[in-house]
């Protein structure tokens, strides 16, 4: 039972990471109906920037905030410069452009920082937290905390601010929003910026666990896809719940199903994606979209 609870908690911790990244994917999807395949690599690149700042002896939390800010501006610029020209192109075109971004970020990171794994510090104490017989990693608990804070901030932003309302409106009905005076195109840019900022947070939280290297996000992005698919691409809270579900499932399956272990982790994600798409393509919380012929 102790092991079970421990696994659930650490599943929730990794699930939080998947949730943040899935939320980033869903935000972009909602606004533009595009899945950003470069989301994970953008997060990886931001984490490298954070690493550089830490090497320059900046304090952790200042680095953290600076990285989030840089990621936000970077995401905004990418939308303005790279995605904008193909905004109205067929989906395939946009997917290919984001794949182009994926390989560019991956290779530039490898070019600048080499492909050798680097340790990344955790802001939380190394000493585990003990409750009775159960031991929690402090980083795991911290991760959950950070995810919850970020989600609360995001919720407040979309629920209580005018800008958040404008962004939701722009995503839901671009034409009417434009008539109301909302600059829809800039709202999309803001969405990309926010998504990139989330990615950066997820990257910095996961790097202490998986170590920093240009390919670190491959598996995590796959799980984020799984999370977004499980929760439904059209539902932000679905993405969060999906992320946590996927994280816990991953850990429990890895612990209790002996033939899977850690070696088939990615296959589990693949299976989850395909099963959900087959059984309920809109995900648990997604809306069914009826198309007129």
């Amino acid at each position, binding site marked *: 039972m102790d092991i079970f609870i421990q696994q659930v908690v650490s599943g929730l911790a990794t699930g939080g990471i998947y949730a943040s990244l899935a939320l980033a994917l869903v935000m972009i999807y909602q606004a533009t109906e595009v899945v950003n395949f470069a989301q994970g690599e953008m997060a990886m690149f931001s984490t490298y920037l954070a690493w550089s700042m830490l090497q320059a002896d900046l304090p952790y939390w200042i680095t953290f905030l600076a990285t989030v800010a840089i990621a936000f501006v970077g995401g905004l610029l990418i939308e303005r410069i790279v995605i904008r020209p193909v905004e109205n192109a067929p989906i395939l075109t946009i*997917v290919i452009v984001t794949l182009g971004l*994926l390989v560019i970020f991956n290779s530039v990171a490898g070019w600048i920082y080499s492909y050798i794994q680097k340790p990344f510090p955790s802001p939380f104490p190394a000493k585990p937290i003990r409750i009775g017989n159960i031991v929690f990693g402090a980083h795991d608990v911290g991760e959950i905390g950070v995810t919850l804070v970020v989600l609360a901030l995001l919720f407040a932003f979309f629920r209580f601010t005018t800008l958040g309302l404008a962004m939701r409106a722009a995503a839901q009905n671009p034409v009417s929003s434009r008539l109301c005076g909302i600059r829809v195109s800039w709202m999309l840019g803001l969405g990309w910026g926010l998504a990139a900022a989330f990615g950066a947070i997820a990257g910095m939280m996961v790097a202490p666990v998986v170590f920093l290297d240009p390919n670190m996000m491959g598996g995590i992005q*796959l799980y984020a896809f799984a999370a977004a698919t499980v929760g439904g691409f059209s539902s932000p809270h679905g993405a969060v719940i999906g992320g946590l579900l996927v994280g816990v499932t991953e850990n429990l399956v890895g612990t209790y199903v002996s033939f899977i272990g850690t070696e088939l982790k990615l296959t589990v994600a693949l299976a989850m994606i395909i099963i959900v798409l087959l059984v309920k393509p809109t995900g648990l919380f997604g809306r069914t979209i009826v198309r007129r012929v």
Partner: protein
Amino acid sequence: MATETKPAEKAATRVETESPASARPVRAARPLGLVALAVVLVVAFALPFFMSGFRLFQFTQVLIYAIALLGLNMLTGYNGQFSLGHGAFYGIGAYTTAIMIDRWSIGYGWTIIAAGIVCLIVGFLFGRPALRLEGLYLALATFSLALAVPQILKYFEHWTGGSQGIVLSKPKAPFGLRLTEDQWLYYLTLAVTVLLFLLAWNLLRGRVGRAIVAIRDNHIAAEAMGIDNSLYKSVVFGVSAAYTGIAGALSALAIAFVAPDSFNVFLSITLLTGIVIGGFATISGAIYGALFIQFVPNWAQDISKAAPWAIFGVFLIVFMYVMPRGIAGFLHLLWIRLTASAVSREQGR
């Protein structure tokens, strides 16, 4: 067949009688295209006499990529189904060959056919549920397939040799032909390439090809015209996977080594880059794309280990902006421009 070609012929003659000037370049294009094709074939056949060793191996690899790209283009270019995971089928084909030769000592010729059949079945089975997935979801499913395959290959260590992979020996030329192993492999690959290109051309130009394109352009209208969407889509998926699998099998023979990490997600992106550069929904585009993905990374490697990917990425994005129809589309456009200006000059006179 005969009844079908008639209306087309009628249309062609009508165009000719109505505007003979505009019909001329079309008529001129036919023999010119055939001449170009003949030149390419002769050059391709003569290549082993001019180069050897590694250079020749590179051109073998170009042919192999061309097969894989043609397969992917059938699916993505002609049929409009995304696949970001064709590297997986390439890997399955390569491993089918490697396992059959290494573990069961079966003649390599048979293994190429077997790789095609295995991938046809796997592709068909994957395409079946993928039918319900449109656009982005299919992209997601295939992308995750590409991410998961190296792990799956490593898992079945008993057959696949785990991360060590399988080492093969290059096949020797049969019938006492006095060719080196590299030369024989080149000719074998060339023969397979020509055969598969002929088959694809035949498939895509006729009724089936029109049905495939119709599904891409408007699947509801296609359904209304009596085209069985789900059957066509899953069969195209299977055939496309089979092409890519055969390419994988040939690559296993040419490199004489397979390892799980060479079939990662970047291979899939490489293949996608190939059809973007070569040109969607063109047959000749497969060749241009294959030349690009084989040689550009080689040149870029001199700059840095990471440079090839950065260049691929930049090319992917830039082509989407300026040349969305790829090199083949660009050449086609150029040809039309040139002949059109020739016609207008003639008319001006």
